[in-house]
């Protein structure tokens, strides 16, 4: 019985090859895309969810309020906070500070030396709060003392090969000695906390001399684990003024964020946070699935009309209504499942590329079947809906009416509606992807106010600063090296800020203003070709320029300085003198505007050497490498290109836009396929009519015109609906950027023309086909 069923189904599929292909492929493509997207979404949502206590883990973050009413939201908290909270607040069970190791460290074992930058400094509670599995060592006492280092499996292999690493010594920067107390499994890729090794928090003090008792220095992540059944709002009110309680003049409130939200939710209320993109993509996934399902239903109901005759005959020979219903249903569901199977294969095939595109380690895990099951449900539903129309409709109508050749028109409305919806979605997607693409392109190319081309920079190891002057001297001699300078941070992302600034005329009770603070070397302004509006840049010819300041326009306007050269500005306890004002340049992501900036000279703070070359970097870089290794044979040379980093700033967005545009394309292709299939079907129904018209003299262009007219009406309607939707969506998105493009009417026109083109190609193809065959074939066509 089942075999007979299969045979008929496959024969039908074969007899209607064109439709079957379009129909099954369309649905399969749709499922494939939405599955891929949802795999990615699921992965992003899975971040940090592997911690067994995840519902009890919270990050403490700060809201710092400044004069202009602006709040500055950061995860950086004072070092004494964690222990204090744990001791004084009942609901808090455990607490740890977390800090990345600052910059590069030199780690050595007996045999070899490594340069590392992926270490974390943590408190012992870290291991109780988080679930990073312990492979070797005591799981209850992972970091027993101040001289313990915990390393990952990967690092253990790299450092000690197959030897047992427990108890082995690792020295850091030659003077600090640690012994390995435990080996952890490598941190999973979907962990926000990524590390190769873990050090006791006191390392910050031991290595950098940082004062860990200061309530006024905001630098570390504080993570707490709360007791079960804690009422979060009341805990938040307790925590909120905690810093002010310990430091009277503070402008800082504390707040809590669930640690599992760390990856996707931004704390500063920026609406363009990753979770927004996750939501957009989830929506896109469903839209694509919807389009594909619409298509499927559309085509199969269209096809079922062709089968009216079959139904009639079956009925005449005595088939029962219920039997027919079951047959149609089974057929439709079977075909949709076929598409589902194909989609699974396609996902497996495409996954490697998609992993590359998203930079995520995705797998189609059958061990986690919720996703697949929900998809199977959607597909079943699609099959069911597609089947129910013909099943209910055809099995209940009177055979004699069909045998007489009466067609049914009411289903056309339903189908037209679906095609129109598809086109609305496609047109809106075309417009959105164009706007998104242009905006990101604009950010990439925007004049940031300094030169980022042909600049390479090198991160210095600790205590390297003393070697810098000599190195600079050698570097500048290399042909092709134009400028050499150093700074504590690169303009790509300034993060060093303070509000402890005062100046003449600053009112006593004024609220604090946050200033970015940059420590730079001579030639910094020249290297990046920043424009000096007033005064001068730092210059070695002018004698000692220490305690001289160059400020940006934004800072000048905050301090109400119009003609400011020579003004005194107090930073902490030092008094500086303004010698120049530079034009505003962007030192953060372009999503944010320009903030006030003070630049001063202080070689102790230098962390980066920046080198401006004359172009074609590779040979010059080789020279630089040679120079480097002659002076510092033990320290590996590594560098970065500023331009690459700049691209990286927008990489998340670029990647998203790439994914978005790819899927838009696919959505459009599916829609086009749908229109193609459907119009082919409609045209096929008109074959006889077209044949008759041909007999009486209709030529290609007459046929083309009559078809175009039918389809263009729908397309235009779809455009009129899609345009305002796309417009408002994109206005809203663009409003999140400090620098933005404007939506162009060309985009609407382009999307409109594209949709017309798709319709035109279909209709052209079909009209041409009819116009070339002998009319008698068209008349006879059944």
């Amino acid at each position: 019985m089942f075999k007979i069923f299969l045979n008929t189904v496959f024969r039908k599929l074969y007899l209607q090859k064109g439709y079957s292909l379009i129909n099954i492929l369309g649905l399969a493509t749709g499922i494939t895309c939405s599955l891929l997207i949802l795999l990615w979404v699921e992965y992003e949502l899975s971040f940090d969810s592997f911690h067994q206590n995840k519902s009890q883990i919270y990050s403490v973050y700060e809201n710092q309020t400044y004069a202009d009413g602006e709040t500055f939201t950061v995860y950086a908290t004072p070092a004494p906070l964690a222990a204090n909270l744990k001791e004084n607040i009942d609901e808090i069970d455990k607490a740890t500070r977390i800090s990345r190791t600052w910059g590069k460290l030199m780690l050595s074992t007996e045999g070899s030396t490594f340069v590392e930058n992926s270490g974390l400094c943590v408190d012992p509670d870290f291991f109780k709060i988080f679930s990073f599995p312990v492979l070797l060592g005591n799981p209850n006492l992972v970091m027993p003392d101040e001289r313990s280092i915990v390393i990952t499996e990967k690092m253990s292999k790299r450092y000690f090969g197959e030897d047992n690493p427990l108890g082995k010594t690792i020295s850091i920067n030659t003077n600090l000695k640690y012994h390995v107390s435990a080996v952890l499994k490598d941190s999973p890729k979907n962990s926000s906390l990524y590390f190769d090794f873990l050090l006791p928090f006191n390392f910050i003090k031991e290595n950098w001399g940082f004062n860990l008792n200061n309530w006024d220095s905001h630098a570390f992540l504080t993570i707490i684990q709360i007791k079960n059944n804690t009422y979060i709002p009341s805990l938040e009110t307790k925590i909120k003024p905690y810093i002010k309680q310990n430091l009277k003049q503070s402008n800082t409130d504390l707040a809590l964020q669930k640690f599992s939200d760390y990856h996707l939710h931004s704390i500063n209320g920026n609406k363009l946070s990753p979770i927004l993109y996750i939501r957009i993509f989830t929506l896109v996934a469903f839209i694509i699935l919807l389009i594909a399902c619409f298509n499927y239903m559309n085509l199969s109901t269209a096809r079922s009309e062709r089968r009216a005759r079959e139904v009639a005959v079956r009925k005449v020979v005595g088939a029962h209504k219920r039997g027919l219903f079951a047959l149609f249903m089974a057929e439709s569901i079977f075909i949709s499942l076929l598409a589902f199977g194909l989609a699974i294969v396609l996902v497996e095939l495409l996954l490697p590329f998609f992993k590359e595109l998203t930079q995520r380690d995705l797998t189609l895990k059958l061990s986690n079947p919720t996703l697949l099951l929900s998809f199977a449900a959607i597909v079943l539903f699609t099959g069911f809906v597609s089947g129910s129309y013909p099943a209910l409709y055809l099995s209940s109508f009177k055979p004699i009416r069909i045998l007489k050749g009466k067609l049914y028109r009411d289903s056309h409305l339903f189908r037209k509606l679906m095609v129109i919806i598809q086109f609305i979605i496609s047109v809106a997607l075309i417009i959105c992807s164009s706007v998104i693409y242009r905006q990101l392109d604009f950010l990439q190319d925007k004049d940031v106010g300094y030169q980022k081309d042909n600049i390479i920079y090198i991160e210095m190891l600790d205590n390297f600063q003393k070697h810098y002057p000599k190195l600079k001297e050698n570097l500048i001699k290399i042909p092709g090296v134009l400028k050499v300078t150093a700074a504590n941070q690169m303009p790509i992302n300034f993060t060093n800020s303070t509000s402890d600034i005062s100046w003449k005329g600053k009112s006593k009770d004024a609220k604090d203003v946050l200033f970015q603070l940059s420590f730079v070397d001579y030639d910094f302004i020249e290297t990046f070709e920043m424009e000096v509006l007033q005064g001068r840049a730092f210059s070695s010819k002018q004698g000692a320029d220490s305690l001289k300041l160059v400020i940006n326009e934004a800072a000048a306007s905050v301090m109400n300085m119009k003609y400011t050269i020579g003004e005194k500005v107090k930073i902490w306890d030092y008094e500086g003198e303004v010698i120049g004002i530079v034009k505003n340049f962007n030192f953060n992501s372009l999503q944010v505007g320009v903030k006030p900036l003070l630049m001063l000279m202080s070689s102790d703070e230098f962390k980066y050497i920046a080198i401006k070359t004359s172009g074609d970097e590779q040979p010059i870089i080789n020279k630089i490498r040679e120079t480097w290794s002659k002076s510092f044979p033990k320290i590996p040379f590594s560098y970065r290109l500023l331009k690459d980093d700049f691209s990286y700033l927008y990489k998340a967005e670029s990647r998203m836009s790439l994914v978005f545009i790819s899927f838009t394309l696919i959505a459009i292709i599916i829609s086009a396929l749908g229109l193609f299939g459907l119009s082919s079907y409609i045209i096929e129904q008109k074959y006889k009519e077209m044949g008759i018209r041909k007999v009486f003299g209709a030529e290609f262009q007459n046929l083309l015109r009559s078809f175009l007219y039918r389809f263009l009406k729908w397309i235009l309607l779809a455009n009129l609906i899609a345009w305002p939707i796309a417009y408002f969506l994109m206005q809203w998105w663009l409003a999140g950027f400090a620098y933005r493009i404007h939506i162009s009417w060309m985009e609407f026109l382009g999307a409109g023309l594209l949709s017309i083109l798709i319709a035109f190609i279909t209709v052209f193809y079909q009209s041409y086909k009819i116009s070339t065959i002998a009319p008698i074939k068209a008349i006879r066509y059944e």
Partner: protein
Amino acid sequence: MIKTNNLMKKFRTNEVETTALNNVNLEINEGEFVAIMGPSGCGKSTLLNILGLLDNPSSGELFFYNERVDGYNERQRTNLRKENIGFVFQSFNLIEELTIYENVELPLLYMKVSSSERKRRVNETLDRMKIMHRAKHFPQQLSGGQQQRAAIARAVITNPKLILADEPTGNLDSTNGEEVMNLLTQLNETGTTIVMVTHSPSDADRSHRIIQLFDGHIVTENMRQKL
């Protein structure tokens, strides 16, 4: 007017090859009224379709006014058809979505005739075919005889030199059939060449000449004595 040389037509469906026409040689002169007769399946419709350029012969030659036309492309065929030939089918082949008026007007639309001229000619023709009162109706609403008269109106509206009619009375009762035959005879009398396929001996009696087909061959050509 029409001349054929060794006309062959073969159909091929799923490995079965049917020879519908085999070495057909005939000549039809201007002003003639020719009937084609023969058992069903012997190739009458096939022959008529090929003469009307609705289908292509597999081999052989076809001349129209001494011009060889079997090699024409679709565009040339369409042009030749719309200027010279009118068609009448057994199953009428009216377009269901169009009114009788629009159906009759159709060939003129493809000939770039001005709308006032179209209106004049459609009305005149409908009047001549005695279906003026049905102009606004759709084909399904008409009787078979009326539909066929509408189809004849459509065939003659361009004043073709040749009318090809495939069993024009096949779907009609005798009264309606008679009426259709009267119309065709009248047309022939005013100079239109007519080639008609028919099963009915009485219809064939109206013609000048009967061509008998059997299994794709012409078996006899009877010149009928004009009374």
